């Protein structure tokens, strides 16, 4: 099924390519694209470059190569703790959000009353601006007299944020796979739980892993909601923000590079799982 889709896509792409624009237009398009990619990557590459700058100020001129800022980052107990906090909350919110999303996606294979209402409910956290997503929780927990802390308020904020994306990633997976095996098992009298654990789950496992990895990455980078509900245990983006606002600390570029590497790597692995063929 999947490969047929790909073949169809290729045929389409071929036809699409049959329109021939003049060479100069193609060239212009490529030059434009090169500028676009430079716009995307230039600043990030510059950040990598600056992270090796010996200078005490964030910026230029480049005073010489040094890895001392990486030492500063890894030898700062505060930063290591923030990193551990972020990874902990990221893992836990990925697990919670993926589980909830899986359950919701299974439900969405049925027809039930109020389906579109539930869909709107799922989409609410991405429709309302992020800053308000943080503030509503600040008010809500403030009046419920729940103290802001990593494993309560921050975790809730992260799951709220991640859940819609987890659902949107996972649902097409559950909706798209060939149900013939599942139906055969049902005809042979297998119990729902057996069908789930032996057939459905193995079929969508790459999708689940991808969803969990994306969720982790989203949570790891979350800032604007977290800042309003954070307690004493800060996450890494909150810590990063503090360092920018307080003093524009010289270790910021090195810290940024480490954060970028972690989130890009998890997303990239998620992406690879996502593209895995279900068959």
């Amino acid at each position: 099924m999947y490969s047929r889709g790909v073949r169809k896509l290729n045929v389409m792409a071929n036809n699409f390519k049959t329109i021939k624009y003049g060479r100069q237009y193609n060239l212009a398009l490529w030059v434009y694209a090169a500028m676009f990619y430079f716009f995307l990557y230039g600043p990030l590459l510059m950040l990598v470059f600056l992270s090796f700058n010996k200078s005490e100020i964030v910026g230029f001129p480049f005073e010489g190569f040094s890895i001392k800022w990486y030492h500063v980052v890894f030898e700062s107990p505060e930063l290591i703790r923030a990193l551990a906090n972020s990874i902990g909350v990221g893992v836990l919110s990925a697990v919670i959000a993926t589980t909830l999303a899986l359950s919701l996606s299974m439900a969405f294979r049925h027809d039930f009353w109020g389906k579109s209402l539930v869909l709107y409910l799922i989409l609410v956290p991405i429709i309302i601006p992020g800053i308000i997503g943080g503030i509503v929780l600040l008010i809500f927990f403030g009046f419920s007299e729940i103290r802001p802390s990593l494993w309560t308020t921050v975790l809730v904020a992260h799951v709220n944020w991640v859940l819609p994306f987890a659902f949107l990633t996972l649902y097409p997976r559950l909706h798209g796979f060939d149900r013939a095996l599942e139906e055969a098992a049902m005809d042979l009298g297998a119990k729902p739980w057996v069908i789930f654990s032996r057939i459905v789950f193995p079929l969508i496992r790459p999708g689940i892993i991808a969803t969990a990895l994306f969720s982790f990455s989203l949570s790891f980078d979350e800032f604007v909601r977290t800042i309003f509900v954070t307690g004493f245990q800060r996450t890494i983006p909150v810590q990063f923000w503090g360092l920018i606002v307080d003093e524009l600390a010289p270790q910021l570029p090195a810290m940024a590079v480490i954060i970028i590497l972690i989130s890009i790597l998890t997303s990239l692995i998620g992406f690879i799982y996502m593209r895995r063929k279900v068959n």
Partner: protein
Amino acid sequence: MRVLPKNYEKKVSENSTMSKKKLSKSRFDGVKPIGKPLFLLAPGVLWLLIFGLAPLLFMLMMSFWTSSIFGTKPDFSFDNFSRVFFTELYRDQLIKTLRIAFMTTMLTLIISYPVAFLLSRLQGLRKAFFVLLIFLPFWTSYVIRAFVWLPILGRNGAINNFLQSLGVIDAPLDWLLFNEGSVFLGLVYVYTLFMTLPIYLSLEKIDGALVEAATDLGAKPFSVFYRIILPLSWPGVLSGCIMVFLLTVGAFVTPQLLGGPSGIMYGNVIASQFLANNNWAFGSALSISLILIVMILLAISSRWIGVQHVFTGGKET
């Protein structure tokens, strides 16, 4: 009679799998998927009701309360809202924010469309590579992607350093940072993907047969573009515009870092009610107003595109 084409067999087999698919789709409707919807829905829906909807409704309620130095007290007054919409300071701030969001949306659209178009015309590994290359930066924290402009535009930034070393300027330029322009730059940089991706997906979906037919009938490449490709990519353009607008209208990080006093946006005004002024009731009214604007926007655009399709790239759910 026409002679059977060479790939006749292949076509037949494709047709038969097509009908098999149709068959299994009709069976899909017949055999119920496993699990009871109520049980499956319960955990997620409960979570969303308690931590998603309830806090929002609570904030809606609080927007009618009154805040004083003694705290925020229940009340039923429209004072907060009249202050939101009729005080010059807040009204101007709102208009300015809408203007910035609109401009950013247009800028990302203009910047993204040609790139999306190019990507949709690539094939195979090359395509995968360039699409992935677009994704990569957006998998990193937006705080970092906003921050990165400080060492570019700042006093010790790349641009000032470059110009000084060339001897074009003697002293660093201060006007590069902390104004509306730097906010635009930051916002475009942070949110372009949300425009590029939906446009790319909608261009991908265009049936090549249409293009082929038009070309066969003698349409010039550019009229093919204007009369077929452009109109058919409209859903992608629209969903990209909605997403970028939604994201920028509530922006907080970028204007806070790059905006300075003249570049602050509504998100910063809202945040200061909670972080500095401690006026929760008024802050709630500001937030509710922003949500209302977002809802109105979505309601208007729902004439062309459903809310669920904005976020699912037009996939049926």
